[in-house]
């Protein structure tokens, strides 16, 4: 991170100046300034704020420097940056179209709305057309950004514990070979979920740094894999890997691919879960800012316990810790009770109704198991299946991380092998992928 220059920078939101810390994402800067409504939702114009804070939920979309619908939680704040909220003609705080929300409390069935008459149908069409869409067109044209093309023997996607272990295990011979092993990481630093220091079973920051250092030169940071394709070109290789690197594309032609992309935080479908002030617990742990003082944490099992403790270490006061299931690791230090959240109240949320009681708080944190990110693998035909205990669709692998696609391997949480299993699964898959 650039440590030169002032630590406080200034951005603007809908014309209003906001102070931000250097290194903040736009979302962190706004939350720090107490701004919780980032946008209005597409259909009912409900107020929305960032949920996951890690680029997976799409609830933080904003117009930034003239480009529509960017993820505010993924864009670093820069001096003079102009941020605008979308989909709210009269301002996000008083959006007139929010009438759509309470006029249709049960929801609006757009399939069967006003089908009775052609005239009403045309009215519905006009209204729907006016309300459609989120962002306005970009201010400026953008010319094609020339992409790069490279070859690799093995591409490992994700430099969390599983990906790092896999890269290490892939073998020196392969690493030294031409094209060798490339380890891609979306974030500016390696470590993935381990950087949160939530789970004692995972390597700590120093160990991660050591693992990454030992692989020097092969780790590509700020490199997000956005697509995986079976190679349909005339060039040799099994797979095409499309990678976004700071606003341009890198195309890798690989013999083998190993995905270790982890999981994504999940919300829970109770009333008001989409309101500003409900966040993923992991997102709050990683956020450089605080969202108030008092939290209610809702979740399940070990993830709940780990996240609650991490949030308390961060300085939050835990009003209540609500466990959805019957089982969780013993945690006498936490105010855990088994219950069900009924509704979140207030904008931003100021209370959570649990059973018949209301718990007042500054924000609600949801700590469900992050769901395996199966998309890269399943899009090329690797099987992924629902596993209730995992809370998602892990990629199906054998003991060596082989998927149902011969050139594709998977390890870590995306294969349902998170936490303490991540390192071992990464190592086994890396060794197998290294052998081919």
């Amino acid at each position: 991170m650039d440590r030169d220059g002032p630590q406080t920078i200034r951005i603007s939101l809908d014309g209003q100046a906001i102070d931000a810390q250097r290194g903040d994402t736009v979302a962190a800067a706004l939350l720090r300034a107490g701004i919780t409504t980032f946008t209005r939702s597409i259909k009912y114009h409900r107020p929305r704020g960032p949920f996951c804070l890690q680029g997976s939920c799409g609830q933080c979309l904003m117009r930034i420097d003239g480009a529509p619908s960017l993820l505010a939680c993924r864009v670093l704040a820069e001096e003079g940056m102009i941020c605008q909220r979308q989909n709210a003609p009269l301002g996000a705080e008083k959006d007139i179209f929010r009438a759509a929300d309470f006029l249709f409390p049960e929801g609006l069935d757009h399939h069967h709305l006003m089908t009775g008459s052609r005239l009403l149908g045309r009215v519905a069409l006009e209204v729907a057309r006016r309300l459609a869409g989120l962002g306005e067109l970009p201010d400026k044209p953008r010319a094609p950004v020339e992409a790069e093309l490279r070859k690799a023997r093995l591409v490992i996607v994700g430099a969390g514990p599983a990906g790092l272990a896999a890269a290490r295990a892939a073998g020196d011979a392969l690493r030294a070979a031409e094209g060798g092993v490339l380890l891609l990481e979306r974030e500016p630093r390696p470590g993935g979920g381990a950087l949160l220091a939530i789970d004692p079973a995972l390597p700590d920051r120093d160990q991660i740094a050591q693992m990454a250092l030992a692989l020097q030169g092969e780790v590509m940071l700020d490199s997000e894999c956005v697509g995986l394709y079976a190679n349909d070109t005339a060039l040799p290789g099994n797979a095409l890997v499309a990678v976004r690197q700071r606003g341009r594309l890198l195309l890798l032609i690989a013999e083998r691919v190993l995905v270790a992309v982890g999981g994504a935080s999940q919300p829970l479908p109770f009333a008001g879960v989409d309101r500003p002030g409900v966040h993923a617990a992991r997102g709050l742990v990683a956020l450089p800012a605080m969202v108030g003082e008092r939290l209610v944490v809702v979740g399940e099992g070990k993830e709940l316990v780990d996240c609650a403790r991490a949030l308390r270490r961060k300085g939050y006061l835990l009003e209540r810790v609500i466990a959805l299931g019957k089982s969780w690791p013993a945690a006498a230090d936490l105010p855990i009770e088994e219950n069900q959240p009924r509704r979140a109240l207030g904008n931003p949320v100021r209370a959570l109704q649990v059973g018949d009681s209301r718990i007042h708080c500054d924000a609600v944190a949801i700590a469900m198991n992050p769901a395996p990110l199966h998309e890269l693998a399943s899009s090329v035909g690797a099987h992924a299946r629902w596993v209730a205990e995992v809370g998602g669709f892990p990629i199906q692998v054998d003991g060596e991380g082989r998927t149902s696609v011969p050139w594709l391997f998977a390890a870590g949480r995306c294969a349902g092998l998170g936490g303490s299993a991540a390192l071992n699964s990464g190592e086994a898959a890396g060794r197998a992928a290294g052998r081919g």
Partner: protein
Amino acid sequence: MTADKSIVCACEDVTVHDLEDAVARGYGDIESLKRYTGLGTGPCQGKSCEVAAMRICTSGNKLAPGAQVPFRARPPFAPTAMAEFAGLQAPPPSSEPQPGLRPTWGKGPHPLQPATPLPEKVDVAIIGGGIMGLALAWHLAGEGAGKVLVLERGYLCEGASGRNGGGVRAQWTTPTLIELAKESIAFMGRFAQELGINVWLRKGGYLFLAHDEETLRRIEGSVDLQRKHGLPTRIVTAGEAGEIAPELDTSKFLAASWNPEDGVVFPWPFLWGYAEGARRRGAQVETFTRVTGIETGQGRVRALQTDRGRVAADRIVVACGAWSPQVAKLAGVQLPNVPYRHEIVSSEPLKPFLGPLVTMLGTGLYFSQSMRGEIVGGMGDPQELPGLNQSSSLRFLARYSRALTELVPRLGSVKLLRQWAGCYDVTPDHSPVLGETPGVAGLLQMSGFVGHGFMMAPAVARRMAEWMGGTKDEIFERFALRRFAEGRLEKETFIIG
């Protein structure tokens, strides 16, 4: 004030109530659930709703374990600007045919295949539950054609009918297609009243851009014909086209043909509407049921074999779109149709700025803005090999993004969200194959609609049902399979893609 909704998909504001409603209506398989509710089609691409949806579907053991799979993942997996794809010089495509997609659930029949037996005998069996088959079933059931059965191997929307761009236009170069399209578009305007579900026909017009003199002469010729058929089509200058679609770079083309009455629809509800309508009229529509054989004897059809058993039928209609040659072969019939993949992609939702569907006749680029605000478009690829390949390619994203941002430079930083592919069902003259099959009485063809079957289906299905009921109709002569053997082609040249 904010109402007390339980939102499952925050991108599209889908509630628990919406999901339960969709399941109750029979759209409980994950692909239908996604399409019927819109779940997972927004900027998060399903990463935050698929799990919650599956939790709801699996509670109370409502969903067979084999069907507990994710919906088909669609790249790109993070919103990526077109300018970034446009900068990719995609390597040349392989000369090997590509294997295409594998089923998400693994091997064998779909886990949601019904366990109930099929009827022993029906009057008309329709193979293929795309828009052709379903619309035909609705009309036949309304005409008292006896027992009508539709067999679809996948979910409704599995084929091209669930994968197309929803463009509907009357700008054609043969009188028959102009008339079919006119009738179909008129029907689409009343679809909601007739079949009880909205299809969102938006008449924003069609602009056919001519990039060179030769193309310009072609569109001038077609405008004359179209005006004779009562269409308001006219040639507009590049400047006028730029007023109709203000973001176009008007230096990229010479002129355009313009019909303000053409438009776009939302394809999926047509299938649900026709299927539900056909069932209300007594027809049977069976999904997840594959036809595996056609029995013939003494020069006529006898029965169908399926992966759920045998059904005897007096008449069998092949309405399998791009799969029709494969299915007709089950009866020993050779169709001249050839399947070609066509890819398509949807952008992030933008506020309405583009009225018409715009297409470039030279490159095959086309795009329009959907009712949800997305720019939906595609582009044919001269290097595409024939085959039933429905997988997506990076090459397409690169070619499409380059062509589109050249024509509409302001789209450079607009992000792509979801790509998919379907198959065109291409005949040698780009006209359909309709009616009797020489040598196999009772085997009826309803295929070969290339990349424009959606907009033809309402009219074609009505006329086919009436013709099957005994009404004479020249199109079943004109487009008969016989014509290929007789060397009597019906050339249509206004093909996009």
